[in-house]
């Protein structure tokens, strides 16, 4: 029985990578889920590019203050020590290398870590938002995405065909079936979802994956 991790579980696995005490920015969609998946004994400072550092997670229904939101327009919860700032200061943090980790969604990631996450065919008016700034400026860029398109086309590709967000920026990729690390020699397959073999993951991935004896099942 092959398991596909759901979005919550992919986000939970990605959130395991955050170092205690680090500052993390979460992109639109699946990445934003990470905010509510942090164990209580861990201390992560979430930054959102609309101008907040140190919120505690997404608000539950009934606690919706539309002047306390993340960059995905979702109401968030305050935490003690939280601070606000304007867009210019926010992007000084982002471009200046003050953000430890950013989690972004993606349409495509290339074997050299190029990221395409904002434009797609038929939607020329869709913008990049803060994605380019985050991909260039964060110390570590990790991606959460589904491994293939709905019609099973690879989204981890040799060369991105969708408009680029930034070149050579992605360091780790978390999908519904695998965890991968982008290395100078190519993409290393580190973990697979329950029921999957390395060969089966390879068949859904365009570039040749690096596979070592350390390959294991995804641990949450």
């Amino acid at each position, binding site marked *: 029985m092959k398991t596909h991790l759901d979005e919550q579980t992919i986000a939970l696995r990605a959130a395991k990578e955050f170092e205690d005490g680090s500052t993390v920015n979460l992109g*639109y*969609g699946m990445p934003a889920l990470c905010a509510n998946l942090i164990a209580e004994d861990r201390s992560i400072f979430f930054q*959102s*590019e*609309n*101008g*907040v550092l140190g919120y505690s997670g997404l608000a539950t229904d009934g606690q919706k*203050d*539309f*002047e*306390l*939101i*993340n*960059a995905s*327009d979702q109401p968030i919860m305050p935490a003690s020590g939280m601070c*606000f*700032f*304007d*867009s*210019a200061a*926010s*992007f000084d943090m*982002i*471009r200046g290398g003050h953000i430890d980790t950013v989690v972004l969604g993606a349409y495509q990631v290339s074997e050299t870590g190029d990221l395409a996450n*904002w*434009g*797609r065919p*038929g*939607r*020329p*008016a*869709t*913008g*990049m*938002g*803060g*994605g*380019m*700034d985050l991909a*260039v*400026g964060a110390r570590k860029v990790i991606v959460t995405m589904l491994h293939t398109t709905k019609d099973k086309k690879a989204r981890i590709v040799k060369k991105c065909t969708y*408009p*680029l*967000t*930034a*070149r050579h920026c992605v360091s780790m990729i978390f999908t519904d079936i695998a965890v991968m690390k982008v290395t100078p020699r190519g993409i290393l397959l580190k973990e697979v979802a329950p029921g999957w073999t390395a060969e089966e993951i390879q068949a859904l991935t365009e570039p040749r994956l690096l596979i070592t004896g350390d390959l294991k099942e995804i641990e949450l």
Partner: protein
Amino acid sequence: MAINKVFSCPDDAVADIFDGATVMIGGFGSFGGLPVNLIVALANQGAKNLTIIANAGGVSFELTKRIKPEGYQDIGILFEKGQVKKFIGSMPALGGMPPTAPLERLYNEGKMLIEMVPQGTLAERIRSGAGGLGGFYTTVGVGTVVDAGKERKIINGKEYILELPLTADFALIKAHKADNLGNLVYRGTARCFNPVMAMAAKITIVEVDKLVEIGELDPEVIVTPHIFVSRIVEVPL
């Protein structure tokens, strides 16, 4: 005696926005920091051929009901009414929304122009304009569609592109409180693009939840100094 900056209603405050004007509009996405009453006043006033500089292009009234059940007006109304010839911003349309927002529809029909700017570059271009600078070099956008036609420079071994300043005839912004001089404080994440835009326009018009007497705001927490504010309209929540 300081000049009186206080206007009694949004309609009066935006009355002289002229056809062909460049207008910055604060806020971030579809709510939180948007000067919604000034936007609606500009839509009613009807100025045309506007260049709008804003982070996001907004959605239609119908689409806002997906976020808030009762719906609300955002920047989308200016596109819906055909008042805009060009949009400069980072999120003209939202990938997570259907392609039916007024801006996206007009763009796809070839009826308006878009200049797509990464969000941090947008903030910094506005700050450059505000501070009288000629622009700045950034690594953001190198190797993407954003770098087309821009001057390149290698600085400390890294490739940068030149980004030029942005200024405007008018800025419409939202703050939480103003005093009668125009000193501003904001609330929560509704600060976003408002402070930089306040500094970058010839005439800055602010909509506030509450107007207070001079001296009531703690000078230590004022975010936008009054020198940047031309007009104030109080629209109580």
